[in-house]
């Protein structure tokens, strides 16, 4: 079968191609990537499944509207580099999004095949094309417009900041990214673990931006090392994009939360991913020694699953997810949920912690939980969990990781009071331009939406870049 001579019936007869992966019993002992990627043959097979709809509804499911039908056609024809280029017209970080997008809620959900068959594996194909381009060393740098003489500062090097910087540099503006940490990439490096998103991929994408001329300044905390006003007034930037991400983790406010062994997911993941404490003592930063211990993670999102699977890989005997609703309500990506189940993660569903219990030395020894049942739907449309009376029990654990979400980082608000924030301290913007209440200051990503997704953050970065360009060049720039 080839791309030219294949009937729709034949296309529909091909089963969805499974991406090869490390077997669960192997991968729980290492931090290497779970998925191994499609071979060219598998990719072509999968691409042939796409029936090339006249009205490709899948595109509507993608927040950045990648020309999905077109790039898949190119893969089917064996034109992998062309496919990568096509994707990059709309998405600067395809190797990353192909791996971490919640496709089942976005592009793949809309795919026409979903109704009767399984959807085309759009994410897997996107990842394949991007990996192929990178691994063969054939990444072509996009062309950059002549210098506009304008300077833009981007604060934060997460997906929002990176995509904004990418678009602006191509439009000819000088871009400097200021990052608080010593590493670039935001959640992509300190949150999402190596076994889901290898750091070499994030590095390669950032390298590409450097080659285009984006300047990166690490160890620069906006609000502390330098304020937004100083960037605009003293350092001569014409506009500022704020992409500082979500902030301080929420705790549950139950007794015993300050016992030794109780972590936030952010701290646990930052120690392991950013500070590489899984290589202690070769790296100096320690983390709770999970070997042979019982670890419980509280929450049901991507962060919770990343934390529990990390604890398992660090040698936890029992690694639990304690979640107050049922599996159907878990916000995590479906694929990760399946991976976690295969890795022996134990799911304690419809349970809520009420108290952490410690010994005389203040080390955590257990958590008192209460069983829940699902009641009426709440504001989010999900059925509200309600406690079942007299159903409390104690789960013996040595480590607890709290993963119930984040608030907003207070630094920008404290130091730039003229940027309007909501009651939840997220930055308020005009969603068409991402402009804040302060002149020439734009914002996007988690700092605007609260914890969301990589692709939404990138989309926001792009929208802002377009609006900034418009503003800087005046209305006549495209004539």
């Amino acid at each position, binding site marked *: 079968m080839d791309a030219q001579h294949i009937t729709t019936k034949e296309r529909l007869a091909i089963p969805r191609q499974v991406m090869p992966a490390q077997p669960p019993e192997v991968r729980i002992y290492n931090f290497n990537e779970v998925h191994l990627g499609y071979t060219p043959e598998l990719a072509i097979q999968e691409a042939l499944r796409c029936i090339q709809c006249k009205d490709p509804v899948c595109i509507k499911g993608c927040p950045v509207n990648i020309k999905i039908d077109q790039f898949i056609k190119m893969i089917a024809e064996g034109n992998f580099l062309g496919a990568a280029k096509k994707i990059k017209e709309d998405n600067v970080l395809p190797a990353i999004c192909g791996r971490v997008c919640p496709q089942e809620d976005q592009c793949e959900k809309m795919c026409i095949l979903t109704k009767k068959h399984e959807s085309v594996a759009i994410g897997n194909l996107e990842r394949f094309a991007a990996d192929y381009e990178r691994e063969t060393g054939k990444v072509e740098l996009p062309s950059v417009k002549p210098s506009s003489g304008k300077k833009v500062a981007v604060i934060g090097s997460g997906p929002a900041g990176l995509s904004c910087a990418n678009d602006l540099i191509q439009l000819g503006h000088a871009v400097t990214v200021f990052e*608080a*940490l*010593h590493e670039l990439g935001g959640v992509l490096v*300190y949150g999402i673990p190596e076994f889901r998103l290898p750091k070499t991929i994030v590095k390669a994408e950032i390298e590409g931006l450097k080659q285009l001329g984006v300047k990166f300044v*690490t*160890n*620069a*905390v906006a609000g*502390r*090392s*330098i304020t937004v006003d100083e960037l605009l007034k003293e350092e001569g930037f014409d506009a500022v994009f704020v992409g500082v991400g979500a*902030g*301080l*983790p929420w*705790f549950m406010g139950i007794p015993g*939360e*300050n016992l*030794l*062994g109780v*972590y*936030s997911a*952010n*701290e646990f993941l*930052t*120690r392991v991913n950013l*500070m*590489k404490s899984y290589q*202690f*003592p*070769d*790296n*100096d*930063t*320690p983390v*709770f*020694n999970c070997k042979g211990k019982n670890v419980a993670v509280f929450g049901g999102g991507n962060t919770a699953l990343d934390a529990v699977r990390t604890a398992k890989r660090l040698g936890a005997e029992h690694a639990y997810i304690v979640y107050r609703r049922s599996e159907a309500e878990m916000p995590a990506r479906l694929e990760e949920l399946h991976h976690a189940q295969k890795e022996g993660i134990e799911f304690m569903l419809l349970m809520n912690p009420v108290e952490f219990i410690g010994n005389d*030395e*203040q080390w955590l020894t257990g958590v008192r939980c209460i069983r829940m049942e699902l009641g009426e739907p709440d504001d989010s449309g999900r059925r509200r969990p309600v406690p079942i009376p007299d159903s409390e029990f104690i789960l013996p654990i040595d480590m607890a990781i709290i993963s119930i979400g984040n608030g907003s*980082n*207070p*630094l920008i608000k404290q130091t730039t009071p003229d940027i309007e924030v909501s009651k939840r301290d997220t930055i308020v913007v005009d969603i068409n331009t991402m402009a804040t209440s302060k002149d020439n200051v734009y914002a996007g990503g988690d700092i605007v939406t609260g914890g969301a997704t990589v692709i939404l953050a990138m989309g926001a970065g792009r929208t802002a870049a377009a609006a900034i360009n418009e503003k800087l060049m005046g209305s006549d720039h495209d004539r």
Partner: protein
Amino acid sequence: MYKIVSALFLAENIKKIEIEAPRIAKKRKAGQFVMIRVGESGERIPLTIAGSDPEKGTITIIVQGMGKSTKELNSKEAGDTVSDVVGPLGAASHIEKFGTAVSIGGGVGTAIAYPTAVALKEGGNYVITINGARSKDLVILEQEMKAVSDEAYITTDDGSYGFHGFVTQKLQELIDSGKTIDYVLAIGPIPMMRAVAEVTRPYKIKTVVSLNPIMVDGTGMCGGCRVSVDNQIKFACVDGPEFDAHLVDFKNLSDRNKIYQTEEKQSSEAWVHECKLFKTV
């Protein structure tokens, strides 16, 4: 890479290090700190900015060798570099004209208290400093403290210099002498800060301490530096590090700081062993 401009031991195990960091030198205020990563595999450790020279573009830190990271930092000399310096972090000390302000430093805490003592003086206060050390050879910044103080006292635990006893005894003596004290700043080991809080509590003297929980990012992202103040969770790197001494749960802080004792010992011993092999110390 950040260059070390000068490095000098002030006492055994306590080193004064001047590092090139122009942006921080220009911006920092009393009470703020930096996070330093000594080498590429190093941890991020918080250290108070003891002083700065905005013209030269340098900041000064005063470091006590405790474990691997601080000992490694203290092995550096002028001309060497460290991988990362980020700051200034934390909220600046709240300075106003309180009246009579007593600044108390214990051990390396003296170095942390010094910039705030300077700011209190500049803020128009009558400044009394009490600096404690275990013995005479561990006394640091004596001249600097004298220069900013209206009254300066040194205490040593063994009586080898100055007042024989603890800083709290000296403080009690001052209170008993009938002096009105409007403000107390205490920085040092946790038991010392806790003891100072107990001395001033009955007199309702406003007392501030600078807390030293274990930190990772220092920018308000990880939640690791949480401390319990007035039974609420506060994050020392963004809400502090200075807090009202009478509301702090010191017991919890001192417990939490022990979490990595085993690992810290392991790192420190491995490092000292390695240094002996290569004879760098």
